[in-house]
């Protein structure tokens, strides 16, 4: 029992999420393989994985993040974990999860590109990205990890608001709680946000500014989550 409590929490939370994530992957991967097959017939150059990367792989983890405080925090306090240790552990889990998903998406691009190459077809990403090619691994991982981390932080904040406040206040605060994710989208200007900002004639800030300000936004969101969580009462669940 010498492992730091936050790491023990992170490992336990990851174990708890693992079956749900496995079910999600078992559904999503065949769906997008199917989409890939259809798109290779109708539009042979486009990436189907790019659609998965900008949709399901963002919003499903967001839904999981909403559950972190209301569903998981009480179990850990019951077992002697402080709220501070829990927030640190959950932050590690969500951060590692964002990085793992980003790496997995990069791997998906690699596999898809290899299939296109084997079929002798060109391979094209149609949305704006921080990267020009899937081979620019640091940029691919940075883009997806930061966008997902921002969304996870917002989901975690929304769940915490519902646990801490009356549901009406929590609902009214959803737009404010989603602001960091919107900020990250506007700063990084990728996928549909990138297309929209492009059409508006806006230019992306320098890469260093976009990455560092997005990181700050995520950190600030987690700080708000911690502020709301550090003294939250553990409510008695109805039987």
């Amino acid at each position, binding site marked *: *029992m010498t492992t730091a*409590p936050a790491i*023990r*929490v992170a490992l*336990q939370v990851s*174990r*708890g999420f693992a079956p*749900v994530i496995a079910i999600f992957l078992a559904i999503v991967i065949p769906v997008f393989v199917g989409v890939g097959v259809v798109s290779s017939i109708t539009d042979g150059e486009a990436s189907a994985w790019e659609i998965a990367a900008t949709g399901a792989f963002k919003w499903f983890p967001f839904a999981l993040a909403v*559950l972190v405080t209301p*569903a*998981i925090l*009480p*179990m*850990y*306090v*019951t*077992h*002697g*974990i*402080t*709220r*501070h*240790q829990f927030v640190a552990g959950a932050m590690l889990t969500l951060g590692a999860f964002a990085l793992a998903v980003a790496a997995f998406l990069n791997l998906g691009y690699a596999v898809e590109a290899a299939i296109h190459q084997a079929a002798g077809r060109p391979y094209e990403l149609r949305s704006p990205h921080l990267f020009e090619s899937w081979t620019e691994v640091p940029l691919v991982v940075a883009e997806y990890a930061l966008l997902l981390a921002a969304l996870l932080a917002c989901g975690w904040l929304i769940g915490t608001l519902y646990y801490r406040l009356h549901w009406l206040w929590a609902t009214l605060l959803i737009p404010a709680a989603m602001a960091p994710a919107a900020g990250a989208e506007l700063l990084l200007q990728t996928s549909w946000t990138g297309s929209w900002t492009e059409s508006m004639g806006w230019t992306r800030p320098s890469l260093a500014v976009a990455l560092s300000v997005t990181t700050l936004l995520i950190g600030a969101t987690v700080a708000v989550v911690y502020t709301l969580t*550090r*003294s939250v*009462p*553990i409510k*008695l*669940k*109805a*039987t």
Partner: protein
Amino acid sequence: MTLGIEVQDLTVRFGDVAALDALSLHFESGKVHGLLGRNGAGKSTLLAALAAYRRPTSGRVLVGGEDPFENPRLMPQICLIRETLDVYDTETCRSVLSLGALRPTWDAVYAEELVEKFEIPVNRRWVTKLSRGKKAALACVVGLASRAPLTIFDEAYLGMDAPSRAAFYDELLADYMRHPRTIVISTHLIEEFSGLFEQVAIIDSGRLVLQGETDEIRARGASVIEPAEVVDRVAGHAVVAERRLGPTKSATVYGDLGADFEENVRSAGLELGPVSLQDLFIHLTANRSVKP
């Protein structure tokens, strides 16, 4: 290791309602305590404050001399078990048991023994799929196997049937003898549990009504049993409860009975019995009106 508890002027408010109202009491270390009170008396709120589930509005809670709230040294040593187990609906029984390992005092082998003893079907089973009784038994397993120096049960056993509750009492006592700790039990099943309690605290409307050694409290009262007209001679003492069964009447008296009470009663040919903790509890808390 055991932990004593000091509660000083503890107030917890929910909006305009004071669940606990300047409550002060002391739970001695290394004993089994009964916490009794009617619905809404503030028992669960008090236990939540002891277990760092909630911060008091004012006043202090000290466990082992320290404030338990967000105390990383103390919180792993406190285990509060509620009937809901505080788990989410999608948790499996196995994951609930694996969470126990977060606590340094957790005994996984003992947990498995108890799972077998209470016949809880833990393998590949969601907690929500357990019957209420088995879920309550799982909660008790988590509490016992936690071996926490301060272990608190808040009505965790309500869903269990009588034989399972009896097995739980036996196991609780046996494990308490093997691993002494401070145990606080909140219950409405007063008669069933009264044999376990070394000390009892009764609270009502967020305030302390009575606290002391169970034996001393019971020694301050007596049940007088005999023909009705004779029992009426004990008038002058506070009658806590009366029961009639045909020509026989039982009256429970409580308070300062005087040194010669027992002699007087016995010389009158009356039978004396121990005071029932439940009768005493009803007497002390009955003033609050019962709302339909």
